[in-house]
């Protein structure tokens, strides 16, 4: 429909629409990560519990599955909002490209359905299924979480590297090659990067709770196992994440030069480009930061002679806001590298057979790793989304041409901020209430058993 074609000026709704999308997606993505990571971690605890007849592991699995159910419910509704927003905020994108862009979402729908069904079966199965059948019913949840993430991230990858479609004379999609849409040039690394991020965010968030528990003096097996399972998952994944990130950065250097220039603050095209740590872009000049000469060229092409495109060769109206992208990129890389160090530290403690509960500085680091993982996650999304601007579909559709012409986005943005802030607070309060109730139960149970020992 040609009626969805471009307008010349920047519509007034653009900033509010982008803010609303960023806010709701930034909220949902944490829950989406939990949807990837929690089922696997729950299954590990469940499997350990069954295999070694370990009541503690089973108790952890049971409790974590309750967290999974709660965050899945919140994720289901915040994910629905994103579906609404595809049309509420971006009719210019959906009206023209829905026929191509929608296909991965249709696959996502299938996985989401499967996830919703088997999460219910798994949760209710604690009581109503045999332990074995119940354990097996968790596998579709884990697989559907991965499948759903694959589909949605493939759609995002398509926005970065659009492929598999032909535009007709009226500007809408006239022909589609579905597999090329799904498996575009960015799908591979984006999907794997997101999978691993899901495991890291979930693992570290969960582990950080038990790290705090140990710092507060709880050192029983429950707390240790509750720390070890998720922490191990996250920290084993961390080196692979750095490697995937490296592959992704080189792909971006090749396929999205403007995003790469923003990430590394490259102002002038040429070889021997430096990596800048920190620093901002003011009037086209890099201000502040520490420069490592030649490193950006080296990372992009394994040689300082690699020519990197700078902003001098990118038209001004095709440039993303570089400072935000660059600082977010530094944040993500910095935190990811720090996680490597945390993993080495943990390995050292394990190899020397030290008691982790007494390693207070390590526990402090682990305790903040959960929040740090979320910060890295959000930073990564800023890099990929803000770095693609001013395009919503890279080099095909400008974000300004996709946005709704409906008035009232400003109001809905404020309402969304209020609603989601409350939702975030209530979610945290609810999780805290659950964990306190469990702590009380454990205290009562421990009291009862020590009482039994004393009298028996």
């Amino acid at each position: 429909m040609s009626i969805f074609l471009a307008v010349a000026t920047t519509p007034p709704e653009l900033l509010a629409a982008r803010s609303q999308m960023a806010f709701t997606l930034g909220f949902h993505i944490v829950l989406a990560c939990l949807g990837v990571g929690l089922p696997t971690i729950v299954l590990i605890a469940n499997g350990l519990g069954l295999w070694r007849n370990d009541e503690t592991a089973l108790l952890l699995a049971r409790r974590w599955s309750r967290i999974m159910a709660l965050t899945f419910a919140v994720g289901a509704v915040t994910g629905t909002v994103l579906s609404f927003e595809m049309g509420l905020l971006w009719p210019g994108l959906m009206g023209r490209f829905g026929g191509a862009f929608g296909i991965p979402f249709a696959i996502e729908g299938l996985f989401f359905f499967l996830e919703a069904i088997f999460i219910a079966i798994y949760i209710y199965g604690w009581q109503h299924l045999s332990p074995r059948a119940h354990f097996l019913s968790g596998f579709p949840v884990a697989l559907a979480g991965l499948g759903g993430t694959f589909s949605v991230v493939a759609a995002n990858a398509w926005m970065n590297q659009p492929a598999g479609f032909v535009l007709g004379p009226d500007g809408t999609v006239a022909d589609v090659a579905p597999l090329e849409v799904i498996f575009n040039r960015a799908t591979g690394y984006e999907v794997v990067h997101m999978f691993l991020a899901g495991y890291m965010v979930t693992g570290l968030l969960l582990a950080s709770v038990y790290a705090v528990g140990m710092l507060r003096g709880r050192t029983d097996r429950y707390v240790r196992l509750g720390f070890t399972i998720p922490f191990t998952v996250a920290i084993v994944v961390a080196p692979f994440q750095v490697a995937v990130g490296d592959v992704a950065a080189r792909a971006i250097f090749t396929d999205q030069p403007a995003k790469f220039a923003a990430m590394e603050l490259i102002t002038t095209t040429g070889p021997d480009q430096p990596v800048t740590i920190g620093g901002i872009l003011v009037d086209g000049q890099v201000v502040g930061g520490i420069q490592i000469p030649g490193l950006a060229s080296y990372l992009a092409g394994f040689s300082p002679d690699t020519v990197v495109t700078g902003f001098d060769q990118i038209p001004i109206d095709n440039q993303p806001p570089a400072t935000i992208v660059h600082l977010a990129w530094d944040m993500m890389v910095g935190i990811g590298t720090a996680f490597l160090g945390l993993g080495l530290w943990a390995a050292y403690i394990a190899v020397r057979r030290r008691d982790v509960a007494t390693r207070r500085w390590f526990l402090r680091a682990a305790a903040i790793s959960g929040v740090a993982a979320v910060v890295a996650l959000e930073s990564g999304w800023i890099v990929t989304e803000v770095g693609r601007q001013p395009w919503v579909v890279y080099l095909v559709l400008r974000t300004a041409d996709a946005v709704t012409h409906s008035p009232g986005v400003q109001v809905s943005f404020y309402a969304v901020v209020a609603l989601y802030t409350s939702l975030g607070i209530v979610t945290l309060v609810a999780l805290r209430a659950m964990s306190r109730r469990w702590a009380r139960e454990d205290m009562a149970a421990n009291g009862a058993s020590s009482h039994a020992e004393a009298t028996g």
Partner: protein
Amino acid sequence: MTAVDLVAIVLWIGVTLYAVFGGADFGAGFWDLAAGGTERGRAPRTLIADAIAPVWEANHTWLIFDLVILWTAFPPAFASIMSTLFIPLTLAGFGIVLRGSAFAFRPVAARLEGRRMAGAVFAASSIVTPFFLGAAAGAIASGRVPVGNAAGDPWSSWLTPTSLLVGILAVVVCAYLAGVFLVSDARRVGSAELERYFRGRAMVAALVTGGLAMAGIAVLAVDAPVLAGELVRRGWPLIVASAIFGLAALIQLRRGRAAGARILAAGAVTAVIWGWGIAQYPYILPGELTLTDAAAPPATLTALLIIFTVALLIIGPSLALLYLLDQRSRFVGHGVGIDADPVDTGDAGPRGQGDGSR
């Protein structure tokens, strides 16, 4: 039959399933709101929470399914609808967030106030959401969504007699479906008292729904003459079928045949939705845009049909398994919430007693 028609039929099946199953879950919230004070309303509220807790997310997924088909198979229709009906659909989206999260949080809330608050939010948003979704449907059906990015009026497109009618009708239909469904749920848990409780309410809801639907024809004749004309001309067998199903459901309810009433009530709602679909065929936006003109390229439609087939093979048995387990297991242990945690929907007593009350 063309691929466009096939995809449109799948979309309409999705809309129907959302209306029936998602609708019944919304209606359960209506009865939660109507259940009265904390003490008096405890038994029906517990039944309601038990009935929808394991299945609401799966039922809710039909909405996502419908949105995704709409934007993939009929992109300009999706863009036009969402942008013109920005206000009611934003409000429906908020309602969905509030309802789902409040329902999930309620059993977790530590204190009675928290539980009450969550319960109130859950119940109120269970009414608000179907109203705005219905109002949006009314705007589409009465041809008030033009093609384009927010081409229609943000207010007058849906603040019409038709939209108000369909919005209110959606709320009472949800309440009707939920009432009937809860009768058989009450039967399964063996509570004659709750069965009586919901039977009476379901019958009242049935009469209100029927009366409103009848009055609605007059509203449509004035406010949406094209839709009304097509409903009478082409949709009449389904309208008649809906009336027959509705009456039969009422009789079954009276006779205490809960399971039969459940199927008939779902049939009555299904007939109305397909009557609407037939009345506006071959248009997706009546008078504005046909299904064929809105359709995505053939390769997309083929891909969608393949995905549906796979989904049917995977989701169908899985959903059947869920419903089977749900029907078999309910109240074997205890229901609300997720597992053995003490859960109440509004119990004033100390937690230990609350746990025992089920």
